[in-house]
Each structure stands twice: as structure tokens, then as C-alpha cells.
């Protein structure tokens, strides 16, 4: 028997050079464009216009990033509580920023509400909404009146329809950007002039219920593109409120309910950071409460400090 | 349907007959009895042998039900097997379109092999040269002219059609 090495999964050299897919000796081989006489399969993905698409962060990309964060944390932490505290602190810095950002975005006057809702439709995408900002901006200056539908930020259906019209305008304005690079500079000036669009700055909410509503509606819409599934006040304790998510998107792929709940502390951190920076000191924990078909239904329990309740009682009177 | 090659293995794991067609347009092309000690025949035997052990494990325990391999396919070709009770394997390599060749192999066994080899007193019954032969060297091949001719005649219409 000749003692050739069997290059597993190849038959001869020429075949080996041609073949695509996984080779045991060299690893995966990508297919090259000239490899087939036929044209490669075309995916609709490549022919679709990016401009007409809503700006969204890919859930896959987001979860991969989240996964790396979790495993890095998991390696360095010795106990579950340490892990949860650290993950929560990651979320807090995001939450405190969001307090600023979302209040600012909500204060853009109703006349340009279409733009506000475009931001929100961009869901988790901070980056893409920023890049779309210049384009939207010109669009709004030109079309403020035509887009004037006056919808509030919470009005999801209306904001979606607006997104459609405004993004069409995006197409034309981005084209001009490409034609003349100096235009881009011009756009940046207009970003700064966004302040002129704000007639009245939105103040942060001072009442517990108001700020919880803001989290339930605006913050959740910004993060996950839908309002949270429920906002409940505890009947037993005065200082406890619950925000409920039936299917937490970020942790939906994590197996083992205990593991998943620990990872939900990232969202807890965002809520905590948001509330603490707004002056509501609190503790936020995540709990699993499956109900019906929602196996991963998660409850974010918010426990306010007593001083918050006392302040509320003094400021707004007993209700 | 297209046929690429035909093999017979005996109970000692030796290849006792092989026929490979290299040019599909020409049924006379190719080689006969040249690959007995070639890697290819051993690999082919190995594949079928390993998969038979897999299917044997995965078979139902119900009595009277066999779990013989009928075909093995890759993206380019398909291997059809037919195993007899005496431990002979008839193997046919064809294109990968799923077509059942079990009757073809059965016919080769019952009408050609039995007729010209088993019923032939001058042909050895066991193709191993010595009694102690287990595997490897020292095997004879089927060289019977009638067997060859009839096999060619039978398979010729299937080579490329």
C-alpha cells in the first residue's frame, strides 16, 4: 500500500485547489468569485438600498458584543453577586448618559417630531442615529411643515409612518453630500443649529410615577424599539415598582434561568443609572417570572430609598 | 444514470473483481482487475465496513428486520451496495441521482456471478490463495472470460444513458 497522506476530504491536488468549504488540512476555504462559471447566488441583501432601511443595530452583532462582555466579566469575578454588581455598574454609566440624551431628544419641538421619532426607531443604535443626524437635519429644515404631524414621542404608529417619508428625503440629501464633500462640513454646522429647533427644554421628571413612565415608554422604546410590557406598583411595599419585559431581547439566547437573570443585571444597571442620576436613589434587581407562553419573562424590581419617598411626600403632598 | 465503477469484495475483505470506466462515452474504456491492492479499493471497503457497523448499531431490535445499507451518497456520486449471505459485497459507483440499483446488483449476483463463478467447477470457490489467508496479499481475481463478457453486456447500457 502506498503511503500517501490522506488529505481528508480531498481527492487530488487539482480538486483540492478548486473546492470550497472546509478542508481538514487547511481549515475553511472561502469561495472565490471566479471559482464558478455560474454567477454566485445573489442575496437581496446586496441589492437593497441602505437609505430606505430603518437604522437598527443588528441584534446578532449586539448579542455577540454582549456575550464577550459577559464572558470577560465572568472570568474575572469570583461570585455571582460580584458579577451582578459589576455588570450593573456597566449599565449604570449607560443609564446616566441616556437620562441626558433622551430628555434632550424629547425636548425637540413637536414640529420636528418626525426627526425625534427617527431617532427612536433607530432603537439600540446610537451610532447610526448620529450619522443619520446631518441628513435628517437638512431634511427637517426643508420639510418641517410637511412633516408636521405633531405626534408625541410615545406614539409609535405615527412615528413609523413618518420615518418612511423622512428617510426618502434622506436619500436625496445624502446624494448631495456625496457629490460635494464640502457639503458635509456645512451639515455639521446645522447639527449645532439643532438647538434652535428647541423651543422649550424638557426638564427631567420629578415625580416617581412620571420618571417611571418615561423609562417604561421612552427609554424602553429607545433601547428595544417597543415600550416595556408592563409597569406595576407593588401592593405590599410602598417603595417598590416593577417594570416587566416578556422577552428580554438581549439575553434571549442565554440558557439556564439563573445565568440569564444574572445577565439581566445589565438592564438593571441602565435603569438604576438613569434613576440615580435623576435624583431617585434606588436598588434594581431582576427576577424571573414565567407566565403563559413567555418562559423568559423578566421583572425588574425597583426599590426606592425611603428618602425618595419622603421627599416626594414633602414636595407633592400625600396622595 | 451513469455508472463509474463496479467492485466485488469477498469475505476476506479482498477485492476480487473491479471494473472502472474512465471515459463515459466509450464503454470499452477503463481498467479491469487493476486496483485490487490499490488504496481506492481499501478505502471503499473501509467506508462500507464502518458504515455497516454504524447502521448495525442503529438498527431496530425487531426480529426479521435487516438494516442493510442500500446506498451511500456524496455530493458527486453514490455508492450502491449489495451484501450476500456468504459475505460477498457487490458495489456499484454511480452518479449521485437517487436511483435504486439493488435489483441491478441482485441480478449481477444471481444471474452472472452464480452462473459463471459459483457453478463453475474450475473456478475457485474461495479466492484467497491459502487457508490461513486473512486479508491483504495472496488473493486471486476473477478472470473468467464469460463472467467478464456477460457483465460488460449487462452493464453497458447503463454506463452513460
Amino acid at each position, binding site marked *: 500500500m502506498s503511503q500517501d497522506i490522506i488529505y481528508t476530504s480531498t481527492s487530488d491536488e487539482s480538486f483540492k485547489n478548486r473546492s470550497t468549504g472546509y478542508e481538514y488540512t487547511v481549515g475553511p476555504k472561502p469561495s472565490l468569485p471566479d471559482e464558478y462559471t455560474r454567477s454566485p447566488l445573489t442575496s437581496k441583501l446586496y441589492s437593497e438600498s441602505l437609505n430606505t432601511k430603518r437604522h437598527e443595530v443588528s441584534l446578532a452583532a449586539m448579542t455577540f458584543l454582549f*456575550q464577550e462582555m459577559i464572558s470577560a466579566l465572568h472570568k474575572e469575578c469570583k461570585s455571582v453577586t460580584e458579577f451582578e454588581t459589576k455588570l450593573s455598574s456597566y449599565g449604570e454609566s449607560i443609564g446616566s448618559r441616556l437620562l441626558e440624551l433622551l430628555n434632550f431628544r424629547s425636548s425637540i419641538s413637536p414640529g420636528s417630531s418626525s426627526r425625534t421619532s427617527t431617532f427612536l426607531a433607530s432603537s439600540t443604535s446610537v451610532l447610526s442615529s448620529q450619522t443619520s443626524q446631518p441628513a435628517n437635519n437638512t431634511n427637517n429644515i426643508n420639510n418641517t411643515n410637511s412633516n408636521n404631524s405633531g405626534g408625541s414621542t410615545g406614539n409609535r404608529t405615527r412615528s413609523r409612518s413618518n420615518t418612511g417619508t423622512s428617510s426618502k428625503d434622506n436619500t436625496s440629501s445624502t446624494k448631495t453630500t456625496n457629490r460635494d464633500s464640502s457639503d458635509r462640513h456645512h451639515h455639521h454646522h446645522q447639527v449645532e443649529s439643532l438647538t434652535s429647533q428647541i423651543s422649550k427644554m424638557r426638564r427631567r421628571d420629578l415625580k416617581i410615577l412620571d420618571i417611571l413612565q418615561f423609562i417604561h415608554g421612552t427609554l424602553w422604546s429607545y433601547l428595544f424599539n417597543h415600550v416595556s410590557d408592563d409597569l406595576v406598583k407593588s401592593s405590599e411595599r410602598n417603595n417598590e415598582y416593577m417594570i416587566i419585559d416578556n422577552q428580554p431581547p438581549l439575553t434571549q439566547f442565554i440558557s439556564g434561568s439563573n445565568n440569564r437573570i444574572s445577565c439581566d443585571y445589565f438592564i438593571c444597571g441602565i435603569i438604576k443609572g438613569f434613576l440615580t442620576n435623576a435624583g431617585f436613589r434606588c436598588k434594581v434587581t431582576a427576577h424571573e417570572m414565567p407566565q403563559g407562553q413567555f418562559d423568559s419573562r423578566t421583572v425588574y424590581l425597583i426599590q426606592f430609598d425611603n428618602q425618595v419617598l419622603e421627599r416626594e411626600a414633602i414636595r407633592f403632598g400625600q396622595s | 444514470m451513469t455508472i463509474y465503477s463496479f467492485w466485488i469484495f469477498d469475505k476476506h475483505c479482498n477485492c476480487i473483481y473491479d471494473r472502472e470506466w474512465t471515459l463515459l462515452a466509450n464503454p470499452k474504456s*477503463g481498467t479491469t482487475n487493476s486496483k485490487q491492492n490499490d488504496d481506492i479499493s481499501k478505502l471503499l471497503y473501509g467506508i462500507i465496513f464502518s458504515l455497516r457497523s454504524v*447502521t448495525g448499531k442503529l438498527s431496530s431490535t425487531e426480529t426479521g428486520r435487516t438494516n442493510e445499507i442500500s446506498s*451511500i*451518497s456524496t455530493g458527486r*456520486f453514490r455508492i450502491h451496495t449489495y451484501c450476500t449471505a456468504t459475505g460477498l459485497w457487490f458495489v456499484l459507483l454511480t452518479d*449521485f441521482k437517487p436511483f*435504486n440499483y439493488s435489483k441491478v446488483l441482485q441480478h449481477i449476483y444471481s444471474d452472472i456471478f452464480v452462473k459463471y463463478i459459483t457453478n463453475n467447477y474450475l473456478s475457485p470457490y474461495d479466492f484467497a490463495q491459502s487457508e490461513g489467508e486473512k486479508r491483504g496479499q495472496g488473493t486471486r481475481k476473477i478472470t473468467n472470460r464469460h463472467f467478464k463478457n456477460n457483465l460488460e453486456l449487462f452493464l453497458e447500457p447503463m454506463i452513460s444513458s
Partner: protein
Amino acid sequence: MAIETILIINKSGGLIYQRNFSESFASKLNSNDFLIIASTIHSVFAITSQITPKALQITQNNVDYVIPYIPMVGMESSNPQQTRNANVPVKLGSYKGPDFFKEPFISWNKSGLRQLSTDQFTMYIYQTMTGLKFVALSSNVLSTNAGTMNGSIDKTKAVNVASQVADNFLRKIYCLYGDYVMKDPFYSMEMPIKSELFDKAVKRMVNNLL
């Protein structure tokens, strides 16, 4: 197509996932048996490419490796018995739309073992670009009565469709793997899959397959 067993074999031949979906012949085997079966399949898979017939090597004819997309294989809506969630759109993890993919795809399994048919079952193997193998054991059997030399074309087609359905189905299992295994921070690569979410999703898909 009734799926009996699903195996996932990693690129070095180790069995990382195995589930039986019915009380059939496969359920009496222990995990060690399955490990042996997995590594046997893995090695045979590699060897099959070695025995490519000469005629094929010479002609290099371009075999079409494109697998057509077969709509809604293993999806909720393909099963008319399950209409309870008709108003709730099924969420497919990070995949959008009603199905995991909608386009035909090129099979990466070009020279390796693809299908094994016996008297009792048919085994389908789907290999990914990275060498991961998804194996499905179906109790459906290639029809044996198409034995005549000019067997009906219809039957040939039906078997072809079965292998295409299997490729579509296993590719969807691969999609699930991409979501529930690859995106689980507590999974370590090449190790056995223990995610119960993946388990559940696979089970649901197998049940939807009629």
C-alpha cells in the same frame, strides 16, 4: 419526514449534541455508542472524497451544488395543527421575517458523505463552512420498489426532494445553533451543548416537520 435523532459533530469529530425524538431504535443506545457513531461518521465523511471515480475526476463536470429554498420547512405555519399562536408572530431570535432564510444556497458539503440510506432509515448530513456537521436520522426509507431498470422518474424526484428538504431543515438547525449556542456566553467552543433553549427550539422545529 419523521426525524428520529439529531446529532451535531464538531470539526474534530466529537459529538457535541445528540437528541432522540422518538422511542425508536436509536433510544436504546448509550452515550458512548453515539460517540463512536459520531467519530465513525466523521472519518467516513473524510474518506469518501478519496474515492471519487476516475471518470468524474477527468470530466470535472460541474455538478450543481445549489440547494433550492423550500418554503417554511419546520416552521410553525407549515403545521396546520398548530394554529393557537396564529395572531402572535413567531420570533426567530436574531432572524427577521417568517423564515430563517429565503434564498437557495450552495451546499458546502461537496465531496463528503451526504446521505446514507438503509432498509430502516435515511441519514442526512449537512456540513457547514467551518466543518461542523449536522446529522439527521429520518425513519423514512428510500423506496425500494423502484427496482426496475427504468424506474419511475417521479420516485427519483421524490427522493431528491427529500434530501433537499433535509438540507433546508438542517440548515435551519444550524441557524438555531448560531443563535442559541454561539450567542450563549456560557458555552465554550467545541464542547457539548447543554442549552435548554436550543433544545427546546430544535424540538419545536422537529415537531413542526410533518
